[in-house]
């Protein structure tokens, strides 16, 4: 999609969406054109937070935050709490390696 077209879609608000009561708060439904404009596909993970009355969704892969500890070769980067997440089940069928590799 040409950049200008994508930008135009971003600037133009979608029609309103409605909050519903759902015991499973693990999914996000967005208009497909909006998702396409930000490169979101099925399975893309976001975190959600409130900013005043706004609800902000941020892609998980774009988030960072941590600090350095230690000195010299023992200097490490400590990832902020919650930023390292379980990978989950490997959905690729795994063929065990054998000695013929």
């Amino acid at each position, binding site marked *: 999609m040409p950049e200008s077209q994508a930008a135009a879609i971003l600037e133009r608000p979608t029609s309103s969406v409605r909050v519903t009561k759902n015991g499973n708060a693990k999914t996000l439904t967005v208009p497909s054109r909006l998702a396409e404009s930000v490169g979101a596909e099925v399975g893309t993970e976001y975190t959600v937070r409130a900013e005043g009355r706004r609800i902000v969704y941020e892609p998980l892969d774009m988030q960072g935050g941590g600090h350095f500890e230690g000195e010299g070769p023992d200097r490490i980067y400590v990832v902020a709490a919650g930023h*390292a997440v379980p*990978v989950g089940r490997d*959905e690729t069928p795994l063929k065990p390696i054998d000695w013929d590799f």
Partner: protein
Amino acid sequence: MSIPWPPTHDDFFLDPDPHRPFGQGDIFRDVPYTKVQANPVGKKPLIDISTRTVALLNYPCEAYETGALLPMQTVAVLRTAADANVTQDWFQRSKPPGALHACPLPELYRTSDLHVVDWRTANLIDTTHLRIVDRVASLTEFGLAFFRQRLAAYFTRARFPITDLLTSGHEQWMEIELWREWNARGGTDFQRWLSTFDPNLGSVPRDLLRDDSFNTLAERMRAATPTA
């Protein structure tokens, strides 16, 4: 940093540079790689030595000691994606992660052939088998962050955000870049210079890396080296 997905060869790799120090993710060809397979009880193990293309796994602090390469390094073998059972969709980052046993390498040879580093083959080799002339490629800063993200996912089954890995690896990256230029300018013993107190700075030059005063450090480095 914004990288379009999937990355191209130039997003991920740097052309081989004889002045560049060894770095995590460096690809070397023609490396003797040993397999030691058990034999039935009472017989000697089956030893196979073959020439492979490998990726260096060591973090620089474990690859070097005060600027000198240590005698042993850890590497993992490059395989075709088909041999390692990794399909095209491993590059669809937004989908649930998969093929955790490998790191995909985009267009390594500037062809459509798919190659991966197979983490399961991690092995120890003699450093003398990693020759600069046989280095096929090094990684860009983004490529290094992605490589480390995949490496961590294999060993820990945890995913670290790429932004954290870019942040945590930035100092290492800048140091390697300066070291490369130092070598290209004919300098010797970069690590000793980096760690020697400079009265004009009031600190060791290395502290400027941490303070993100890279341009100042680069100026000091160029002043301390002959012009290439």
